């Protein structure tokens, strides 16, 4: 995961006691997901930043009452969603997550597979090329930049689910509960997001021509 944070007990104590260094760590670790999450409810990036800001102000107010029934992160994200929903409906922007019907088109272009009249219908025409390892620092940085750009270009809901799952490390159940979506829809969004990032990496490795 991007940022390693202490346990919830330590975080909560830190927030209550006004530990600035720890709060800065939390901002670094969670802001990306929080902005994306907010952006899935409101209409502009600026509006999403304000939602994140209002969320933290509400957290400062409410942290004394945090009882640890969920993880701190889930608790904070729920506050954010409440604030973002209100703001989204004021902006008349909200398409509720629950009403979402994810796109189920193939995630790998059908031109990669043999046609219905082939001897092996649905088989690879050519196998995917193996990727090189990225042990070198330069290559690792480039790969990271490629992945970051790929995430950024995903539809917002895919960004949100991918970030919560694969960067924040939340469980599928947590994400479904947080966003109020079905297990199946969560998985479709996650799968589409991962497949799109994979395909971007594939193009990157093909273009750099690094031998595996």
């Amino acid at each position: 995961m991007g940022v390693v944070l202490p346990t919830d007990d330590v975080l909560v104590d830190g927030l209550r006691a006004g530990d600035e260094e720890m709060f800065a760590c939390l901002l670094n670790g969670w802001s990306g997901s929080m902005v994306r999450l907010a952006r899935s409810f409101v209409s502009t990036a600026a509006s999403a930043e304000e939602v994140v800001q209002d969320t933290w102000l509400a957290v400062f107010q409410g942290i004394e009452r945090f009882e640890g029934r969920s993880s701190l992160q889930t608790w904070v994200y729920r506050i954010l969603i409440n604030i973002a929903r209100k703001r989204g409906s004021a902006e008349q922007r909200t398409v509720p997550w629950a009403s979402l019907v994810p796109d189920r088109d193939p995630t790998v272009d059908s031109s990669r597979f043999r046609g219905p009249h082939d001897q092996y219908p649905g088989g690879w025409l050519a196998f995917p090329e193996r990727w090189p390892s990225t042990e070198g620092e330069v290559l690792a940085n480039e790969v990271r930049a490629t992945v970051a750009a790929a995430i950024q270009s995903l539809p917002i809901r895919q960004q949100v689910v991918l970030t919560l799952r694969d960067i924040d490390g939340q469980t599928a159940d947590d994400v479904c509960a947080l966003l109020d979506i079905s297990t199946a829809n969560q998985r479709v969004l996650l799968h589409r997001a991962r497949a799109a990032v994979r395909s971007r990496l594939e193009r990157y490795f093909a273009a750099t021509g690094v031998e595996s």
Partner: protein
Amino acid sequence: MTCAELVELVTAFLEGALDPDTERRFIEHLAICDGCETYVDQMRRTVAEVGQVEPESLSDETRDRLLEAFRTFPRE
């Protein structure tokens, strides 16, 4: 199970969410198909690479404002 079908089930497979029969067919296919083996490896690798991405940040203004608000928040 064809390769085109398998690639759509990778996330469900990694989550352990396939029904037993589909999971068995998935694994049987994987055992004999280098293309799909590579594809599944690449999806795993993708998940790992996504986990390495630096989280994005707020604008400096919002960040500074929040740090200031935290510093000056009235506490007992």
